[in-house]
């Protein structure tokens, strides 16, 4: 880590420049220098930003769009709305242009994160993509996760076969509303890897109210909760 920090500092020094353009190197480097070298802010604004208060259901109901909440590990929920519907692929994005692409209940891409999932190729009858009553879910499905890491790192794909474990009834609360769901665990594996996705599913419609999904080998799973379904907007 010392070496890496040193190299980043070297990079920061070598590459910093004042320029007539709009992309001032120093402004872009400032948070990196602070985080990598000094472990925190040193160029002013030392006070950490307050954790935003989570909105109430009443407040969320005033949002005139479909809304989902996304979080990674213990991070606060981010509430985002769909900005585009491209043939069923919904782009949810926040003001910093971090977001997810969802098709049905499946996360098919992430944006603006450290490592991004580019796309997911799935079976025609993937029950996470096309909602269907739990009784009609297939035995198993295949998925192909595609990653484009940028910065010169090589792209790669991960193909897995997924099967479903027996579901268990579970009540989930999503911002003051309670839903009776079946908790279904999807076990995906190939010859070198296994990961699990968890879905909280309406057993009759197959609608997924909440899910915790794998989004890549270098990212923590992402949790998605449906505040207001897209179709209901």
């Amino acid at each position, binding site marked *: 880590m010392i*070496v*890496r920090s040193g190299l*980043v500092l070297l*990079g*920061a020094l*070598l*590459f*910093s*420049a*004042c320029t*007539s*353009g*709009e*992309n001032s*190197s120093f402004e*872009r*480097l400032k948070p990196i220098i602070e985080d990598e070298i000094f472990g925190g802010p040193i160029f002013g604004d030392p006070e950490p930003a307050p954790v935003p208060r989570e909105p109430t259901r009443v407040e969320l109901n005033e949002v005139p769009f479909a809304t989902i909440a996304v979080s990674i590990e213990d991070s606060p929920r981010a509430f985002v709305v769909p*900005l*585009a519907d*491209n*043939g069923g*692929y919904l*782009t949810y994005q926040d003001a*910093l*242009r*971090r977001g997810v692409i969802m*098709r049905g209940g499946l996360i*098919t891409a992430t944006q603006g994160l*450290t490592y*991004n999932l*580019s*796309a997911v*190729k*799935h*079976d*025609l*009858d993937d029950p996470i993509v096309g909602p269907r*009553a739990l*009784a*009609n*879910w297939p*035995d198993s499905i*295949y998925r*192909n996760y*595609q990653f*484009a890491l*940028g*910065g*010169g*790192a*090589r792209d*790669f794909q*991960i193909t897995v*076969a997924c*099967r479903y474990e*027996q579901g268990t009834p579970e009540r989930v609360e999503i911002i003051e509303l309670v839903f009776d769901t*079946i908790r*279904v665990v999807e076990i995906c594996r*190939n010859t*070198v890897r296994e990961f699990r996705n968890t879905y909280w599913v309406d057993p009759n419609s197959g609608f997924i109210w909440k899910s915790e999904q794998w989004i890549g080998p270098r990212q923590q799973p992402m949790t998605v909760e449906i505040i207001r379904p897209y179709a209901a907007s």
Partner: protein
Amino acid sequence: MVATPVVNWGKGLLGTALAALGLSFIPATAEEPREPERPTLNLFGVTGLIDTPTADMQPDANLTATAGYFGGYLRNTISAQFLPGLEASFRYSVLNELGPPGNGTTLFDRSFDVKIRVLEEGQSWPAIALGLQDFLGTGVYSGEYIVATKGFEVDELGAFRVTGGVGWGRFSDGNGVENPLVNVADGFRNRDVNVGVGGNVTAGQFFRGENMGFFGGIEWQTPVDGLTAKLEYSPDRYLREREFGDFEQDVPLNAGIEYRATDNVEIGAYYMYGTEFGVRVSISANPFRPLSDLDLEAGPKPLTPRATPAGLGDISGLGDIISMITGEAPRASISDPRLQDVIVHERLGDVRWADAIMTARAGDRCPTELAKAIDAELGVIDVVTFQRPDNSPICSVALRPAGEHAVRITSRASSAYPTDWYNRDDERAALVKALAEELTSENLSLYGIEIAPDRVQVYLENNRYRAMPRALGRTARALSRTMPPSVETFEITPVEGSLPVATVILKRSELEAQVERPDAASKTFASAAIKDAAPVSWDAVLAPDTTFPRYSWNIFPATPVNLFDPDQPARFDIAAVATGGIEFLPGLSTNAEISYRIIGDLDDIERTSDSLVEERVRSDIAEYLNQGNPALTRLTFDYVTKLSDSIYARASTGLLERMYAGVSGEVLWKPASQSWGLGLEVNYVRQRGFNTLFDFRDYDTVTGHASLYWDTGFYGLATQIDAGRYLAGDWGGTFALKRRFENGWEVGGFATFTTIPFNEFGEGSFDKGLFLTIPFNWVLPYDSRQELETVLRPLTRDGGARLVVKNRLYPLVEDNDQGGYRASWKEFWE
């Protein structure tokens, strides 16, 4: 299982379903690639044991800087895995008491190595490599070898690698046997160790000598993570070192341990030849492994699809459109009497489309059940269009996502969206303003624009994204959000230095069908057209915010270095550099650069030129460094333009570089569709005074070159061949070869041969060097087009010296062609 599945997939259905998804071609083991093993290095800085090489290779593209020391001998090596099976090294050694015989002085020696993999290691056979050590240099370390290495594992003890080899030259001193090649030709007995001024390829000495010797050893990768132990037998008797110095050698054995402290740093300690201790430090980097693993770039704003207008079926000839992507089994047969004929053809690339002609009695109801039957019995069918006997459409049934996309494209492309907006000036102006704002939010600039009812031509300035396709993709998304639905064709032309370099033509309906889908980038590249950008009359198309004159400036730190001076092998300055420019009109500008040394010792260089070349065109560089602070390193008037779709031109005059002023003209022919181009440059220059201001020396000359540029498409290898007249009036050619990576890394070398004889050129025999470019986005967690570029010359002499021109044309266009865009197109949707 949570439920009984509806469909019990048999093999056939499974196969069909997977084929439909394109999954069948993806091996079930498709996975994140494993990090390749990175073998350890030796004291020469090449992959090896301690003082001898192995047949192992570093991971592709790996770069390593090594300092190895023992017995008073310091070897500093830069090594590159230039190709997966080719390791190349440049070494600068400081060898105590190995100077000219008898005077006990230090020898500063430059040498090059190369190692080629002959056979990759297999389950039951070893890796085999052939190497040339110090094949280009004074030959102090010269030797050739063939080496084999095989690995095996022992339970609980860890992994072992065993190496054995046979060598000539330095490898033949001890335990030698007769060189079998002397039986082929007696001349193989003679190996001349005197190579004069050095710098030549000593091919005439390869595999020569009375004897050849054997070497080998074992490497133990201990169970302790990163800790390696080595034991080797070295046949090198260090005869010259023992003759001229006080080096002693008791046994031909070396042993040591090495520790890889981090992924990038390796240290080693050794006991050498029973008399000496040795140490080694190596630092490595790899273009494929960015130093910064963060990505602080914001994601792209979404592509906004157009609404599909009502009644499009009548317009498109598809009839009612129905999607039946269910994976269910067919419940009808193709032998149904309502079906008169079926014609299968491919549209939009590889979409299999069936036209099913119904009988007159079939009526107008869409027979969706027959679509499944046609798909099942005629192979994979993506879309079925049912037609009446007169070929009028009844309906179209999409059976797969590819078919759904094809129907969407066909319908939207043929839709008659309103175009009345085009007749209103204020509405067009508002569109331009909105687009400019959207591009600004993506850190891009709208340079110019032409709008028509069904197409838009955008001239784009990208000062942010290393990969131009990323800028193109974000521009296409911005166009989708701002342009009226009738605008179906997006033509995007990147502008580099006010030169339109290439035009990418994208169909909006295709983009709408590709975005967010799997394999979107490759599909978009297949459907895009890339052509030469035509010369533009800028007055007619400039965006409102693109005004002239426009100004630019930049202040940045610089660390110029001077290497390989025997008085002090490494000197450097810390300097501040300021650049500024005024562009009066598109392509017409004045540019200046001034540098000021803040601290450093480049002005301490005392070594004066000993050049035998009549004109000291470069070897007086020390005088310029001594006397030129501040240094006005550029003050030019420049003009660049396009003479035709694929011909570019440049004219520059003024203070062109630190040492020369004059007039420079260049023409470049480089069509976007081809991988090669031709250039011609002619300059008349006068040598500047040492104070690097406005004084001049007596020397002036005409210099220029014809150039061939070729991107081979093989592992990113690009070549440049220049032929012409150099600064000293010598005629000749330069051959350069470099490997270019998608993220901007460049590693390569060059050599120049001119009419100046080797002995007149002086030490090194001919001009040569290495170049290295490191892009900032490899180091920092955000995108950038800036880069750190350096040329490493073993010697600065006067033969083969070329004028430095800072705005040559080829660098502007080399990534803006079909090959360049193909290489980085994966970033289009990022």
